[in-house]
């Protein structure tokens, strides 16, 4: 839902970042307002996942230029845990397995960290169980998964559902979902997409990173951005994703070559 007067949640300006000595992001500009759903598409290696990790504060990436403002504050100054506590969420492309750490305890500690930041009381074991059982319905997850170690032995679909469950518990204001649709069969995709749709509301914003139209058939984005060579090359409405599905990414190479030739860096508005 696009409302020009909606509060600004995330503003990325000319963001440059590298991993080790390799520059990956080369001037990303992106603005997310409350209520909006954005999709970032692009080929492998275009910088989509790097963007998500930089926003979440992954220590392997270094920001070399630009700024990221989250609700008026400098996001890049904050530790990863602090970013999460104030409402930024990253759904991992490859959720990490942690043997020996109970999923239920992990979810409770994470939820309480977010609640404490919001000035809410911490939930004890019993109150948390009630909450988590209710939120399990968002992703139609079996309560048995709570008793297992974090993501250990989960199938691809179960891991992604566990990510959306965490999102349902943490109630982020900005949710970045990095290829949440990868490795899902059609039923799992529907459940995950349905969960994301339930959680998207007028007060939060969602950034979907994806390769494929099929996720966007289930979650309609307000904006679609095409990323290439570490920047956003084009921004449009949902029809841009459909066009990509039809024509592929070949035009991207041409446009990149033109950009290099002219030194143009600003994204091109279409439609």
């Amino acid at each position, binding site marked *: 839902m696009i409302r020009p007067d909606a509060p600004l949640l995330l503003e990325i300006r000319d963001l440059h970042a590298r991993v080790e000595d390799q520059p990956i992001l080369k001037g990303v500009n992106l603005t997310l307002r409350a209520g909006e759903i954005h999709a970032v598409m692009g080929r492998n290696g275009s910088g989509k996942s790097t963007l998500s990790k930089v926003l979440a504060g992954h220590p392997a990436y270094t920001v070399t230029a630009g700024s990221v403002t989250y609700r008026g504050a400098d996001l890049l100054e904050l530790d*990863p845990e602090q970013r999460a506590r104030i409402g930024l969420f990253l759904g991992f492309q490859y959720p990490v397995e942690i043997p020996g750490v109970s999923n239920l305890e992990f979810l409770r*500690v994470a939820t309480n960290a977010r609640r404490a930041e919001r000035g809410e009381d911490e939930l004890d074991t019993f109150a948390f169980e009630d909450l988590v059982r209710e939120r399990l319905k968002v992703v139609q997850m079996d309560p048995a998964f709570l008793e297992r170690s974090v993501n250990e032995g989960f199938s691809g679909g179960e891991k992604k559902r566990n990510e959306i469950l965490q999102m349902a518990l943490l109630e982020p204001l900005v949710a970045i979902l990095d290829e949440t649709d990868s490795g899902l069969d059609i039923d799992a995709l529907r459940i995950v997409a349905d969960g994301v749709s339930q959680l998207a509301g007028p007060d939060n914003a969602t950034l979907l990173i994806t390769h494929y139209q099929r996720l966007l058939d289930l979650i309609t984005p307000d904006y679609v951005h095409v990323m290439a060579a570490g920047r956003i090359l084009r921004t449009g409405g949902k029809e841009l994703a459909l066009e990509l599905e039809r024509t592929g990414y070949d035009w991207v190479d041409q446009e990149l070559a033109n950009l290099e030739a002219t030194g143009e860096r600003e994204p091109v508005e279409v439609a």
Partner: protein
Amino acid sequence: MPAVALPATAEWLAALAGEPLPGRRQEDWRFTDLAALQAVAPQFWGGSDPLAHVVLPAGVTRLAGAEVPTLRDQTLQATGSAAAWTVRLNQGASPHGLALRVSGAAGPLQLQLDAGDGPGLLALQLLLVLEEGASLELLLHHSSRGANATSLVTLAQLARGARLNLGVLAAGDARASLLSHLAISQAPASELKLTTAVGGWGLSRLEPRVCQIEGAAQTRLRALQLVDGQELADTHSQVSFGGPEGELDQLHKVVADGAGRSVFNGAVRVPRQAQQTNAAQLSRSLLLSERARVDTKPELEIVADDVKCAHGATVSRLQQNELFYLQSRGIGADQASKLLLRGYCEEVLRELPAGAAACHPLQLLLPERP
């Protein structure tokens, strides 16, 4: 606190064992400094025998005294344990003994082996004879709060189809030593699960020796050893297969912090007659400090040609991707490290016999990291 060796102790221990203290020149003791053991007063521990008033569950009876030496020698011979220095010391120290026969499905048993704060050497010997098809769950719970040494030799014979779930939970003291030798012989179709969790001792030395006499048995070894401060923990395990189709699944985990030192040597012997043995050994060490040291060594002697023997060893710090995942959910770096450390330990601790949970092993072994 660095241990101060008492000159008389080494001589006293050597006299008990009938041979000098092992030294750095012996391959099996190369990394194992016995300073903590030599700092113990040269006397026997004076408390009351912890094995004297054990209440036995149904299915477990005491063996007649006359049977004990023969059964003991049989097991020592089968596992090649008779010459081990720790066993010689134990024998020479006239240990308090408990010898048990297990028939049918026996109830769980737990032995409290607390050396307390009294000085000296506490020597204990345990003999278990599991009859055909018998099963037992046994937890040995060691503890100490002072400058003493516990020497325990556990001997077990598993007849055909017998199942032993043996747990050792040992939370010690920086001034205390634990010398634990476990000699276990397995008949075909028997199952042994041995889970050891050891931490906080100035010196601990565990020597599990398992012999599948004719192969075709199952052995599952799970171990966790933690060192911090100036502590030293050493495990020398040895599993040998005397016949075909035996199985071994071994996981040895280490947490090394402070200036602690951890030693693991895992021997697996697969002679020509042990075809179709399936053995896997994994050693994982977590280094939490620049000053800690880990020595880990698989020692596979494989002569048979139709076998599966896998082994691996990793030494690492806390996994960055795991830490970041927890942090990205709002969990602070300190708390995330604690959660990961607990999880790392739990993977072994949850395999202890069920009765161990009531002892809160995690709190015992990681007392400063609630």
